[in-house]
C-alpha cells in the first residue's frame, strides 16, 4: 500500500475552508454552532453511537469510508456533550478536507481494509488528524467570534493583570492563568471545552490582546 496523496494545508487554508463551510451550513453564525443538527439534517449524515468504543479501542469517533456515517462513542454522546461536539466537528473536517482521499482509496474487502490500516503511514495519519482537529476547532470557535468575545471579556482579567504587575510578576507567568480565565468564560458560549478555547486563542495568536 503506497502513501496517501495528502495535500498539506496551512492553518490559513483550513481556516478558509471552515469559513466557507459555515457560510454554507450556518450563515446565521449564531452560537453555539449546532454541529449535530448540521450533520444530521443539512448533510444527511447518520450519527451512530457505539458502546465502549473509547474503552475498548481508545477511539472517540470515526467516519465511514462512504462518508455517510459518523460513528461515535456512546458514553461521549450521552455524557460528554462538549467532547461529543468536538468529535463531530473533527470528523466533518475529514469529510470536507479529505473527501478526495477517501474516494481514491479503494477498499474492496475487509481483508484489504485490514492491510490498509496495518500499512498506513503514521505520518500520513498525523497530518490528516491535525487537519481534522484544526477544522473542528475553527468551525466550533470561528475566528471573528472568538476575537470579538475575547475583546469583550478582557476587562474581566484587568484586575488579575493589575495585581500581577503590581507584584512584578512577568507577563509570561500570568499569561496561562489569564488565558484559562478567559477560556472559562468563553467555553460555555461556544459549547466546547476550555482546552479548545485555549488552543484556538493560541492558533489565532490572540494572546497579544492580553496586556
Amino acid at each position: 500500500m503506497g502513501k496517501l496523496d495528502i495535500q498539506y494545508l496551512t492553518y490559513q487554508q483550513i481556516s478558509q475552508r471552515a469559513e466557507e463551510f459555515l457560510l454554507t451550513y450556518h450563515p446565521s453564525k449564531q452560537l453555539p454552532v449546532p454541529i449535530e443538527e448540521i450533520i444530521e439534517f443539512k448533510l444527511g449524515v447518520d450519527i451512530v453511537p457505539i458502546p465502549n468504543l473509547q474503552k475498548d479501542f481508545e477511539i472517540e469517533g470515526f467516519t465511514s469510508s462512504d462518508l455517510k456515517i459518523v460513528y461515535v462513542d456512546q458514553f461521549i454522546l450521552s455524557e460528554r456533550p462538549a467532547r461529543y461536539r468536538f468529535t463531530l466537528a473533527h470528523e466533518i473536517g475529514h469529510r470536507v478536507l479529505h473527501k478526495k482521499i477517501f474516494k481514491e482509496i479503494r477498499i474492496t474487502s475487509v481483508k484489504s481494509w485490514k492491510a490498509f490500516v496495518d500499512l498506513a503511514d503514521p505520518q500520513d495519519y498525523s497530518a490528516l488528524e491535525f487537519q481534522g482537529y484544526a477544522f473542528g476547532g475553527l468551525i466550533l470557535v470561528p475566528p471573528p467570534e472568538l476575537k470579538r468575545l475575547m475583546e469583550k471579556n478582557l476587562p474581566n482579567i484587568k484586575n488579575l493583570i493589575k495585581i500581577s504587575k503590581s507584584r512584578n510578576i512577568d507577563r509570561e507567568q500570568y499569561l496561562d492563568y489569564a488565558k484559562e480565565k478567559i477560556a472559562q468564560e468563553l467555553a460555555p458560549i461556544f459549547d466546547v471545552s476550555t482546552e479548545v478555547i485555549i488552543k484556538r486563542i493560541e492558533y489565532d495568536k490572540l494572546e497579544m490582546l492580553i496586556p
Partner: protein
Amino acid sequence: MAHKVTFGQFFKKMRGKKGLSLRRFCIENNLDPGNISKMERGLIPPPKSQEKLEQYASYLEVEKGSDDWYEYFDLAAAHSGKIPDDLMKDDELVKKLPLVFRTIRGQKVSKEKINKLAEVIRKS
C-alpha cells in the same frame, strides 16, 4: 402500494422537522440513542406494541389523526413481518469501515483489535 420511505427514514424525518438531534431527542425522552439510531436505519424493527408506537409518536409531536400520524402507523405496519438483516454483509461493511482513525494515545490499533472493531461496526 409500496411505500417510498421506510419507517426509520420517516421517523428521522419527523425528528428533523422538530429540529431534534439524536442526542437531544434521546435525552429528553430517556431513550437509548443506539437503539433509536438502529431503528432509523432499519436495523431493528419499530416497536410492536401500539402503546409504544403512540408514545414515540408523541415524542415526535405527531398530531393524532393527521396525515403524518396515519403515515407513521402505516409504515410501522408495513415493516411488520420484515426481518431486518441483523448482520451487515461484507460488501456493506466495507463501506462503513474507517479509513482514518487514531487512538487517544496516538498509537496504532493492534491486529486483534482491528478484527474486533470490524465486527463491532458490523453489528452497529
